[in-house]
Every structure is written in C-alpha cells, then in structure tokens.
C-alpha cells in the first residue's frame, strides 16, 4: 500500500511539472495510451516504482533515440513502423482473462504442444489457463530460489533488482550496450518493461541451469525485455531463455537488450530458443524481433558462449556478440536459424578481439525454406593489441526448395599481424535422394526433413543444455512443416 501512495505522489509531482502534452492519466490505468513521448516514459518508470536515476537514464536514452534512424543495412524488407501507433506499457494480464481450460485453447496450438511432447500440466501453464494450484511451478520456483540464495546467487526480475540491488544494476547496466548503441537498443533503454537479472558471486558455480521458465512473474515481459547477467570472478552460470512452445503476442514489435559481463576466470553460457509467432504461411502477422545481445569478457580467462536456435518471428535482426577484453578470454557463437514461408532473418555475431590470445569460434547453420530469406552477417575484428588472437568461423546454409534464399556476409578486420582467422562457408540443398532414402525406410515427409536438418545442425544442437535439446530437435521439424511434399 505504502508503495502505491508513494507512486501516486511521484506521478502527481511529475504531472504538475512536465505533462506538457496534456496527457493526464490515472495510475490505476492498465495501459498507457498509444504513442511514445517523455510522459509515457515517466509513466512507465513511475508504474515500476523506479528510483530517480533510472528515470533519468531512460529519458537520456529517449533523447538519443529521437536523433536516430532505424538501421537499413540488413537484408530485410521491413514496412515502415509507426512508433507512435504502439502501446509501450500494459500491465501484466490478469489470469482471470485467460482460458478456463484447455478446451478453450486454439487447437492448432495444442497440436504443436503435443508434437513437442510438452506434458499436459505445462501445456495449461503455457496457454495461460487460469487454474490455481494446477501447476506446481510456484513451489518449484520457491525451492529453486532458496537453493540459489544459499549460494548468494541473485536471480530476479530486473525491476526487483533495481529496488533491492540498485548498486549492482547501476554499476553494470548500459556498460555493455550503452543507451545510444543503436536505434533499437535506445528504444529498449527508454521503455523496457522487465527482464531478468542474475548475479553470481565470486567463485560460485551456479548449481542449476537458470531459466526464465522458473522465474515467476515473467509472463508478458516479452516486448521490451532487458536482461543483465553478471558473473563475478571465477564463477559459472548457464542461462536458458525462451521456450520451444509457440509464443504469441499482440505486440508486433519486440526489441530486447541482453548484457552479459564475465569477470576474471568467469564463464557464462547463454542459450536461447526463440519461437515467436512467425506469421501465417502468406506472411501475414508475425513478430518483428530486433534484439541487441552483447557480452563483455572483461576479465582474463573469461568465457562467454552464446547458443541460439531461432525458429520464430516474421523478422529477426539479432547479432549476439562478444567483446573479448580480458587476455585469454574466449567467445563462442553457435547458431541455428530457420526461416520458412515468408520469414526473414538477418542474424550472426560480432567478435571483437581486444585482449592478448583471445579466441573466438563461430558456428552458424542457416536453414531456409518456402520463400524465406536467411542471412548470416558477422564481424570478426582483431584490434592492434590483440596479440595472438584466433578465430574460426564456419557458416553453413541449407536450402529447401527453390524459392528461398541464403546469404553469408562475413566482415573480417585484422589490425594485428599475429592474428589467425579462418572462415569456411558452404551452401547445400536437401536432396531428393536424401528424402527418398528416408521415406524408403518408413519416415514421413516431416520426420525426414526434421531428421536431415537436425543432422545438419548437430554441431550447434549438441551445445544446448539437455533441458532444451530434445524439444528443440522436435521444434526444428515442426518449423519446417509443409516445406516439402
């Protein structure tokens, strides 16, 4: 209650001074009006009970954003987006609005759940069925949290972290992806609604995979998500993001920011399965996913490993990167990007070698079917002081059918003569022979494609944690449904 009163006061004060657009709102409103301006940002900040410095931070990002333009260098066809015609804040949906049972859920969605082998109870949770005490995620999460707390690991929403651990948030947020880094990152910095925060103390090896799945209060934070993970000296953490089940959202525009910081001898493993709604087979609808993910390997011998399986979204613009500052630090990027129907993906990584003997590995597998376009875009940059730096890059593309496209755009810059950089690229088609061979052994079209593509992606899939890998393998087959036969 106290918090609410404080917020109301804050908003009133703000309103008295600065509501120059004449926009008056009630703090109990569930949704901010459409459009983006300073008032909306103040509203979001107030809603989230944020400290003053955070609001200032957001406003600064907003002013940077106003001077920026949407990047157009990617190989993507994007209709102009009207940023004033979107909502930037909506309170999390109440459970009561959800379906009452699985009978009320879209059968198409249930069919996919079934194919993925998701247990009934989890299906209910994913579909947002309003049943209390059906799913024991709350108790699981509580057990989880307790275990983590014992080790001093902080795992909470970023809003919570801002209130309970402001010193950590303030120290690290925006140090890897600054507010004005790029158009979408600036937008996110101004209006982000929630996301995850992880801090692993010195010398602690996080005893379990951290997953948003087990962090309660994560529903509906997808649109402008902001994640910050800090691995202190000598620590280790593996983080799982996303879920294989298809995710829908009424908001088309998604712009997330993820910052990872690894100090001396620390290691972060970050795995993503992205399955946002890709639009229908005619390319109508679907999520626009503009993501800025970046890791700073700040300490010596630190390591960051990105693994992503991207199957959803109408448009994917995403380049998880590593800044290899610490000597002997290691960056890895393992990616599977699948586009079908009219999906477009422009994705890859940046490996910036600053420290001595820094090493990076890039394995990218792009699969394109239907009329989709799939581009790998990557930068390997060796700076003058990166004595003995090494990179290995392998980009493989697989085409299914003859109307899709695969493109590889590698940028390589070396400013140090001792650097060693290797780049390999292949493009192949699923052959009729392979499909017939599988079918002759009894596999249906879908199973055959799934099997062949999984084989093609094997080097990446084996990097996924066990929790993800079985479902992710099935997801690959499902994403390519209807691509042959």
């Amino acid at each position, binding site marked *: 209650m106290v918090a609410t009163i404080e917020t109301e006061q804050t908003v009133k004060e703000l309103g008295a001074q600065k509501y120059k657009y004449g926009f008056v709102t009630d703090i109990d409103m569930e949704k901010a009006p459409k459009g983006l301006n300073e008032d909306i940002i103040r509203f979001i900040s107030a809603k989230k009970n944020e400290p003053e410095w955070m609001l200032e931070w957001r406003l600064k990002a907003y002013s940077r954003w106003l001077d920026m333009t949407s990047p157009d260098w990617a190989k993507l066809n994007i209709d102009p987006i009207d940023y004033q015609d979107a909502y930037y804040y909506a309170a999390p949906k109440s459970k009561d609005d959800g379906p009452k049972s699985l009978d009320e859920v879209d059968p198409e969605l249930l069919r996919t759940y079934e194919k993925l082998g998701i247990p009934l109870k989890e299906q209910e949770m994913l579909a947002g069925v309003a049943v209390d005490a059906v799913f024991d995620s709350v108790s699981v999460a509580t057990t989880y949290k307790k275990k983590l707390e014992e080790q001093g690991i902080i795992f909470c929403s970023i809003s919570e972290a801002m209130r309970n651990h402001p010193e950590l948030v303030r120290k690290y947020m925006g140090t890897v992806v600054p507010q004005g880094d790029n158009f979408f990152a600036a937008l996110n910095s101004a209006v982000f609604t929630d996301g995850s925060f992880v801090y692993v103390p010195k010398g602690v090896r996080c005893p379990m995979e951290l997953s948003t799945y087990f962090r309660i209060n994560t529903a509906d934070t997808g649109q402008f998500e902001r994640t910050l993970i800090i691995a202190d000296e000598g620590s280790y953490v593996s983080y799982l993001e996303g879920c294989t089940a298809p995710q829908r959202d009424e908001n088309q525009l998604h712009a997330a920011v993820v910052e990872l910081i690894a100090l001396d001898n620390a290691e972060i493993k970050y795995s993503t399965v992205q399955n946002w709604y890709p639009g229908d087979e005619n390319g109508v609808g679907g999520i626009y996913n503009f993501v800025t993910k970046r890791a700073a390997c700040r300490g010596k011998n630190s390591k960051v490993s990105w693994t992503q399986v991207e199957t959803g979204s109408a448009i994917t613009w995403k380049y998880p990167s590593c800044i290899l500052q610490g000597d002997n630090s290691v960056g890895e990027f393992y990616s599977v990007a699948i586009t079908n129907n009219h999906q477009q993906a422009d994705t890859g990584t940046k490996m910036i070698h600053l420290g001595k003997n820094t090493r990076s590995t890039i394995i990218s597998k792009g699969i394109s079917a239907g009329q989709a376009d799939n581009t790998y875009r990557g930068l390997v940059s060796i700076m003058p002081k990166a004595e003995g730096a090494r990179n290995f890059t392998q980009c493989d593309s697989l085409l299914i059918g003859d109307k899709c496209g695969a493109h590889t755009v590698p940028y390589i810059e070396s400013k140090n003569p001792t650097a060693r950089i290797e780049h390999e690229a292949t493009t192949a088609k699923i*052959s*009729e*022979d*392979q499909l*017939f*061979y*599988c*079918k*002759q*052994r*009894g*596999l*249906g*079209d879908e*199973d*055959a494609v799934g*099997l*062949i593509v*999984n*084989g*093609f*992606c*094997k*080097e990446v899939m084996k990097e996924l944690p066990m929790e993800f890998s079985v479902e992710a393998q099935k997801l690959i087959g499902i994403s390519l449904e209807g691509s042959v036969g």
Partner: protein
Amino acid sequence: MPLIEIKNLHARIEDDGKEILKGIDLTIEPGEVHAIMGPNGSGKSTLSYVLSGRDGYEITEGSVMFDGVDLLEMEPDERSRAGLFLAFQYPVEIPGVTNSTFLREAVNARRKGQGEKEVDALQFVKMMREKTKKLGMSDEMLKRAVNFGFSGGEKKRNEILQMAVLEPKFAILDETDSGLDIDALKIVSDGVNSLRDPSRSMLVITHYQRLLNYIVPDKVHVMADGKIQRTGGKELAEELEASGYADYQEDAA
C-alpha cells in the same frame, strides 16, 4: 496368395515421357528369392524405383498387388512400413545423423504406424548390438553418420544391416554386388542369406551372375528392353554367364 504380383506394368519417365517398363509380369511367393538379370538400360533399376514409389515415374498401365493390397496407391513411406525394403544401389549419405538414430527413427515410424509405443532406447541399443554381431559387423558403424564417408563395401553392408533391423516382408536388392570386392561380396551375401526366411521374399537385381553363386535364387528372370524375356531356374544364370545378353539385346532391337 503370392506376396507380390506384378501384372502388365508399364512405366515411363515423367520428364521426357520415355517408356522404360513395357509390360512386366512377375509373381513372387512368400519365402522365394528371385533374381532379375539383364544388360544395362534394360529397366532393372527403374523397376526397383517404381516398386518403392520414387518420384519421377508415371505408371501408365498395369497393377502391383503387395500382400493383398494395391501397392501403387501407397506413398513410399507407407510401402516401407508395410514391409517393402529397397537396398539401394547407391546408398545416400546423411551427414550428422548417426546410423543408430536413423534406424531408431525408422523403427519408431513402424511402431507409430501400428499404434505401438516408441522403442525403449536401451532395449534398442541392445538389439542393434545383437544384429551387428550376427552380421559380423562392428557396432562402431552405429555411431557413424549414415553412409557418410563410408567405403563402397561399408555402404552396402549398412544396407543389409538396415534390412536386418527393419525385417521386411519383401526386399529388393538393387545391384548390391556392384563395386564390391570378393571379400565384401561374401560378407554381404552371408548377411542376405542369414535373412532368408519362409515368410520373407527377395528380388535380387544384378548384372553379373557371380552374386548368384552366393545368393542362390529360386527363379531367374532375364530382363531386356523393359520386359521379362525369359524365366528359368538358377541354371539360367550360368547359361547367361557363358552366352552374355547379346541374344536378348538383339531381340529388343
């Protein structure tokens, strides 16, 4: 009831309309092993593709009954699950997919078709080890990607291993002897012979008689110009070895 009954089968290539099969009649009873011999271009491999349902051929006339059902109405994967197996002349490589995963998928596709549960992983590994041992193969083969980087002999042996695991009612061996040295030929033939069974029929397609020294057929057919020109016992193969296909090719011309 015959296991397979082909009547007046005509087929042509979809792309250019060229007729390859010009009226095949062939009946195979359960447990029988038949051999089809013939010169290159006689339509032997086309027959194996048409029977297994490969795209690219149009059937213009005739019928094929398999175990009492119309084979030509079925999709290739349905034919496989119904018990038809083709040992490929050129087995296909599938990078990144291990032999054991591939076979488990194939076995599960069958079980699913019959409404059974998926095979237990441990039980499957055990079964695979037994099969490879029985065929005198190393189970190291199971961990390798399907045919990927296999030698010619290994690929052919792998076909026989798959046949042993899938236990078909009817197996077509398409030039399984091609590209094999005498040792590999013996291993493959021993494998095939160990799979002979009163309820399993086989159609062995070959250009040379030597394979039939190891896999002794019940009947031998000579195919030329898209038709079966002559049928006899195993002595027909020996006769052909001596006289060659010249007579039949002249007939065709």
